[in-house]
């Protein structure tokens, strides 16, 4: 099996503050193979965005990586300087943000922002960059790219702007794209188009995508594997079919049950009693234990690591020797 494009091992992110240090991510591990889409789900505040930011080296100080490793295309990147990360961002990792209305600089034409990104990362003349920019706009399905390239962001609709953002993410020919809720801010009718576009680009270009979303329907449709996060930890990860059909972690099961049919959002997890603990009040042992129906003494004593089960991995004593 070839090396994964991205491998995150036991990642820990901390925010030192006046009232002590907050551990926002604790022992997050995941990997992405070439051309694969990994869907990342979890309640609000679970650490999905944080994981993406940590990989890109975009944590807001004083937040920092306090432990673990991040490997990208066979190279360790979690200890690089910001100067070195600037060369990686855009070139090796593309990004798609949630809100296309605010992701683009309103004062520059989309062409100038595309050409800027292209020329930063690829050795091209101005004319070559422009040709590539037009080509990118065509690839992401913007009609009349030759005219549209000189238009400003406000002249595009929300869906079209997100296509421009995708074109920007692709501009430096990265092998990995981190898309943080790329459809949340869009009309429902447009969401499916954008997801289909991502899926197609992924297949055509062999790009891997880490797709953060609240929408399990999107995951079911587009992702190859799914990663479930809870309170800054990875609780279950595996092939989409298996995890959706037969979730092994009680939290994942709760997530599935909380939506009557796939395609609904999981913003409100009313089916699971209680709420996710604050980061400074995570219980000992399994972080899910106050809400878990299967909780046993072992769950309160020791923290389950991410261990193999079937085709994937989970972090639950239930499937690893029992909770007693």
């Amino acid at each position, binding site marked *: 099996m070839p090396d994964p494009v991205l491998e995150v091992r036991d990642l820990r992110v901390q925010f030192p503050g006046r009232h002590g240090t907050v551990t926002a991510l604790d022992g997050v591990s995941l990997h992405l193979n070439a051309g694969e889409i990994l869907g990342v789900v979890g309640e609000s505040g679970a650490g999905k965005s944080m994981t993406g930011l940590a990989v890109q080296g975009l944590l807001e100080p004083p937040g920092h990586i306090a432990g673990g490793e991040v490997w990208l295309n066979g190279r360790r990147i979690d200890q690089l300087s910001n100067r070195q990360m600037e060369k990686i*961002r*855009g070139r090796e990792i593309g990004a798609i943000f949630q809100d296309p209305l605010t992701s683009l600089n309103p004062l520059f034409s989309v062409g100038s922002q595309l050409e800027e*990104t292209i020329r930063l990362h690829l050795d091209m003349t101005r004319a070559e960059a422009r040709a590539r920019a037009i080509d990118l706009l065509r690839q992401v399905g913007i009609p009349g790219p030759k005219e549209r390239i000189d238009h400003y962001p406000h002249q595009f609709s929300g869906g079209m702007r997100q296509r421009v953002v995708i074109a920007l993410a692709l501009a*430096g020919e990265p092998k990995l794209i981190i898309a943080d809720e790329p459809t949340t801010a869009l009309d429902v009718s447009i969401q499916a188009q954008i997801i289909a576009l991502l899926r197609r680009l992924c297949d055509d270009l062999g790009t891997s995508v880490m797709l953060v979303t609240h929408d399990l329907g999107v995951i079911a449709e587009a992702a190859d594997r799914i990663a479930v996060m809870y309170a800054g930890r990875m609780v279950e990860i595996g092939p989409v079919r298996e995890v959706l059909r037969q979730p092994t972690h009680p939290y994942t099961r709760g997530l599935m049950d909380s939506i009557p049919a796939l395609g609904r959002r999981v913003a409100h997890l009313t089916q699971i009693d209680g709420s996710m603990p604050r980061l400074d009040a995570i219980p000992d042992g399994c972080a899910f234990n106050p809400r878990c129906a299967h909780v046993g003494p072992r769950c309160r004593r020791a923290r389950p690591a991410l261990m193999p089960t079937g085709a994937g991995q989970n972090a639950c004593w239930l499937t690893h020797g029992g909770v007693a």
Partner: protein
Amino acid sequence: MIVFLIKRLSNAALVMLAVALMAFMIFRFAGDPVELMVNEQTTQEQRQELRERLGIDQPVLMQFARFVGNAVQGDFGISYRNQESVMSLIAERFPATFELVILATILSLVVGVPLGVITAIYRGRWFSEAVQFASIIGVSLPSFVIGILLILGFSVSLGWLPAFGRGEVVQFGWWSTGLLTHSGRMALILPTVALSLYQITLVMRLVRAEMLETLRSDFVKFARARGVPAWRIHYRHALRNCLMPVVTMTAMNIGALIAFALVTETVFQWPGMGLLFIQAITFVDIPVMAAYLVIVSFIFVTLNTLVDITYALIDPRLRDATT
């Protein structure tokens, strides 16, 4: 864009008409100017003749129409004090004020913008905090105190720079400039610094606040995620988004500076319009006061209009909204 221009210009014209009305009212309420200009020996005929010359024997509406008509042609009547044409009095003083205000504006931008950018990018570092602290002192000192302190320091104690006047000036037609002679340039330094200190702190604080806000915005974060280097984000993406408020404030403040210059001109005995106005008040020289009001307002309104047009040029969103 054309519609927008016409709209803006007619707005400006309307405002100027209102200002003219106010200036005109000063005449009406200030009593009979003839009584101010004559002495006991003046005969009734002479008084009547003066009345006709001043045009105050006609109905009010006619007088106002004449006032506006004349003002448009730059004719503000004659000074009550020395019976000279008001316009030539002002024209003679205008270059001094203009030079001072423009230099103060340039200085405030050249110093204020980089300070604002630096204190925003390096917020929390000791030098940013020091600049911030100094700026608080800058805002809280009244400008005449700054002027007097500068004179005390650089003229009286050190003797490096002149304390008053314009030095030698070079004449180009009706325009005079102090920029071409050594003594003229030396004389400009202190008043310019005195007038611009407050502006520098304003510009700096505005740029800093705007930069901090812009640096938090999504498109800056996205630019970082695209791998745009930090300096390019700061000076190209973020600063450009801060420029609009700076342009607005700068242009608006040129008007304010002309008004502020009154104090600076008094402290430094700078022969500009402000000093002329102060003298006009002392002598109840209504035409000079009215002309000063109209001309300063005109500068205000013109700048305002230019600002709006510049806005439309910088920001593509406005450009479209107005066509």
